[in-house]
């Protein structure tokens, strides 16, 4: 009897598995389905516009491709040419590194200096903050690049001002030694957003630390070096990484100021500008894809290096 009963139960259980499985499916759906429904647009974009294209571009970087004929496999030829036989690549890399090395430290130094002045509780903080932030907001536009092109032209505003004090300035934008500096100045002029982040960081430093320090007789300078600077290093690190990555990707100002050429004599040929010229000027899509992956490699190496070295100078409070 027991055996029969057991088998009956087993049969019954077997008959129940289907609705139970459906129930489980429904349960899985109610548990996980809603999440995926909300995520659906992003998932489509992730596969269709990011992951798929990234894989495709890695493939294209090993081909010769002009948009008309289908891609032709050339192995590592693009990379070999970039590394060994492309003076414009070398020039653009040099210009870009120069731009990063010149613009980022100056920009951050200005941002930090002004943030510290503003953090002293000056009256009209919000007005000053707004004025200093305005160039950051407008600076990415073509209008500002156009303005810069006039400011630093041979007969531009800067030279008119210099003439008033008896200095005859060169044509800054068409002189290969100076043209990069006009772009650096444009970048430093937009110190507003790192400044705001510094200000927020300074506000996080507890005031009782300064009070304790001044009770102990520490001078303002000493307080700055022993309290402000160490406690601000995470913010400095963050700003430095973000601004450096942005500087590597800069495009519009160099394009407008040089009229798309990167001249004079490649002195404003930003890496991204060279990539654009190769892809959409010469239609060397395979070669440009290889350039793009080298940019990723450079930015990735830089970021990894920053994080590795950060533990020697960035102070994390725990």
């Amino acid at each position, binding site marked *: 009897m027991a055996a029969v009963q057991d088998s009956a139960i087993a049969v019954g259980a077997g008959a129940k598995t289907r609705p139970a499985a459906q129930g489980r499916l429904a349960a899985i759906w109610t*548990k996980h389905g*809603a*999440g*995926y429904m909300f*995520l*659906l*647009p*992003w*998932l489509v*974009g*992730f596969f269709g*516009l*990011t992951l798929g*294209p*990234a894989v*495709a*571009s890695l493939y294209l970087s090993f081909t010769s491709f002009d*948009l008309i004929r289908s891609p032709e496999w050339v192995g590592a030829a693009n990379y070999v040419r970039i590394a060994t036989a492309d003076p414009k690549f070398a020039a653009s890399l040099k210009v870009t590194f120069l731009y990063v090395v010149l613009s980022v430290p100056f920009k951050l130094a200005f941002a930090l200096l*002004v943030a510290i*002045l*503003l953090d*002293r*509780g*000056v*009256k009209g903080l919000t007005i000053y*903050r707004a*004025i200093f*932030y*305005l*160039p*950051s*907001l*407008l600076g*990415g536009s*073509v*209008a*500002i690049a156009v*303005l*810069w092109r*006039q400011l630093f032209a041979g007969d531009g505003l800067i030279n008119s*001002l210099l003439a008033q004090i008896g200095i005859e300035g060169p044509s800054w934008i068409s002189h290969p030694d100076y043209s990069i500096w006009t772009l650096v100045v444009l970048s430093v*002029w937009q110190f507003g*957003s790192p400044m*705001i982040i510094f200000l*927020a960081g300074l506000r996080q430093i507890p005031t*009782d630390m300064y009070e304790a320090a001044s009770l102990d007789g520490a001078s303002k300078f000493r307080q700055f070096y022993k309290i402000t600077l160490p406690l601000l290093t995470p913010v400095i690190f963050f*700003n430095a990484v*973000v*601004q450096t990555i942005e500087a590597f*990707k800069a*495009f*519009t100002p160099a*394009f*407008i100021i040089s*009229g798309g050429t990167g001249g004079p004599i490649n002195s404003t040929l930003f890496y991204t500008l060279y990539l*654009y010229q190769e*892809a959409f000027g010469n239609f060397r899509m395979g070669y*440009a894809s290889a350039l*793009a992956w080298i*940019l990723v490699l450079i930015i990735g190496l830089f970021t990894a290096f920053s994080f590795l070295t950060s533990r020697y100078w960035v102070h994390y409070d725990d």
Partner: protein
Amino acid sequence: MTDATMSSITAPPPPMASRRSPFGSVFIHAALIAASFAMLYPLLWMVSASVRPEDEIFSSTTLWPSSVDLSSYVRGWFGLDVSFGRFSWNSLVIAGLTVIGNVTACSLAAYAFARLRFAGRNFWFAMMLGTMMIPYHVTLIPQYVLFLDLGWVNTILPLVVPKFLASDAFFIFLMVQFFRGIPRELDEAAMMDGCGPWRIYWKIMLPLSLPVLATAAIFSFIWTWDDFFGPLIYLNDMNTYTIQLGLRTFVDSSSTSDWGGLFAMSTLSLVPVFFFFLFFQRLLIEGIATTGMKR
């Protein structure tokens, strides 16, 4: 206990300026005012040059025009084969659709990441953060090939459709941070009352997230309005140009001949951004301070 420590316990800590001499404060103000003027001088000069008589533009370094002459605006507006009215309209359409796309698609994804439990959530979240790190140059060329094959080049679709697929991951991240700050009790109470995720998203999360949605909308608008690279690649027919492409064509075609018209149109192109700056400054500055945005 000395008076100094007593007062620091009973009274709120004095602002640092009060401990400074009046001389120091005057000095700081003088430095800040001088710096502000130096920062704004090129901008003000451009605005002033745009309303100057043509022959005065280069002879003067002052900011006050001898007489106001708006003819540069008329010359600039019609300075190319297609008017700047058309360019502005194109820019406005692209920026407007981008705002809608970013706000809807990014808030949907952000809600899933911030509130819903599902298998693989952390994995996808990491992927999303990863896409923020990758420079867009890597996806640029295959995307171009894709949109070319779809026949979308010279239309606004390549610039707008990706936004409806939440391609600006940065805004997802911004919204996730905000959504996480909304008390969970609200959703739980709504769930007890039988609300599903859609109603919670629509009736609770979105209404409580207006500040972050506004921040995302304003930055979407400004960045799209200022975008040069995307339109440069996808829009080749002058009728489809945005205002930034119009300016670029102007500067290349007229080069040095019509700076007045060029400055007039440049000034005009900055007006919408300046408007947002004027009226939504606090949202913008808070957005940067809390997330560390690049611009």
